[in-house]
């Protein structure tokens, strides 16, 4: 039996101290230990993108990172982004454009979309598709997701003027 190890990290602006087995991945830690179930677990080998979270400001696959590797890190999940209002307009655009059906991929889609919009305030449809290429959606066919992100881009640009 391998003993749990202590970790300290910040999750959604809250300091967390926990004991975790070394093999526990960050996605399972967020879901099972912190009850942050907006981070979804699909393929568990880095293909589907459903577990995307932010670590120290960068989006990563939380199924491909151990919880102990998040020692001293700042983690933001969809709950954090949603509660802070950072992506309220993007969420509304997804709703209005029918950019989700079952909703399984949606939290990670929002994460990846917001990541793109922070890097590039005026992405083309091709750039949007490229940035989301690591996130699978089995319902929408992606078109509506690209529409929602594009309309958010336009709205944010108008607000900035």
């Amino acid at each position, binding site marked *: 039996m*391998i003993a749990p*190890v202590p970790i300290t990290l910040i999750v959604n602006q809250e300091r967390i101290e926990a004991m975790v*087995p*070394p*093999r526990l*991945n960050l996605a*399972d830690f967020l879901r099972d230990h912190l009850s942050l179930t907006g981070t979804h677990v699909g393929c*568990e*080998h*880095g293909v589907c*993108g459903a577990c*995307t979270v932010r670590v120290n400001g*960068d*989006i*990563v*696959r939380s*199924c*491909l*990172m*151990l919880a*102990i*590797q998040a020692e001293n890190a700042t983690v933001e999940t969809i709950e954090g982004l949603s509660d802070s209002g950072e992506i309220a307009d993007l969420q509304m655009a997804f709703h209005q454009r029918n950019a989700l059906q079952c909703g399984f991929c949606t939290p990670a889609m929002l994460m*990846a979309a917001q*990541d*793109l919009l922070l890097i590039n305030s005026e992405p083309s449809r091709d750039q949007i*598709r*490229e*940035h989301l*290429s*690591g*996130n699978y959606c089995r319902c929408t066919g992606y078109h509506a997701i690209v529409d929602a992100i594009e309309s958010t881009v336009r709205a944010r640009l108008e607000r900035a003027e």
Partner: protein
Amino acid sequence: MKAPAFNYARASSVQEAIDLLSRHGDRAKVLSGGQSLMPALNLRLLAPEWLIDIGPIADLRRISVENGLLTIGASTRHADLQRSPDIAAHAPLLKDAIAHVAHPAIRNRGTIGGSLAHADPASELPACMVALDATVIVQGPDGERRIPAADFFVGIYETQLLPDELLVAIEVPKRTDGARHFFREYARRSGDYAMAGLAAEAEIDGDMFASLRLSFFAVDERPILAKASRHLIGRPVTEVMLAEACGALGDELAPQDDHQATIGMRHYLARQLLIACVVSLLGRSDLGARVVA
């Protein structure tokens, strides 16, 4: 699935990592960005007793240029390479290639040392290292070894790295003024594993290749530095020369069949890459049309 249980050790220096590797040998795996190791663990393809996390070793995450020699620390992330002005200036081939490595979230964690030590035959960075004539620097209990990239890759997931050695850096030689590069791969979808790819570095003298390093990937057990380039060097390239090079290329590659592409398709794609490379580097759109693919 979930990863099998393992012991975890955090190395805070290269020496500490080597000490841990000396103690645990091939019962340990080095954890860098984890973007290949974690899937293998979650799929239960590997069950190491120990993971040695080299993430905390700050010295390994750096890009430096001295006298034109580019040195890249093993823990430099793909995203660091993609954004680095030094990489854009001194190894633009790498910058082009990185855009094809998986997806943004993977590139934020994956490291160059991890990719090279993993040695997936379909991955981009090993092939770039061969094209760039880079040197792989490894450290072990007996000190440092410097291994030319062309010798470093041995087979599928197999390198010259010994169980008690750590890949610490890569050196890319100084680029000459006339140097040009080419990178292209065929994949089913953006970010997928390549079915065939080519990373090339050339020196061009007027309308001729003075040198041409063609490094093909996903068409053999390791990146292949194609000798077919000798048909293209030192004379203005003709349709006949290009056809000879394409013919010679077929004998050098030993691609495998899989769910993505057949052996014949991979040979075909490799020839198309060679033609596209020559056309692009020499600016000769007249070439290639009559080569029987």
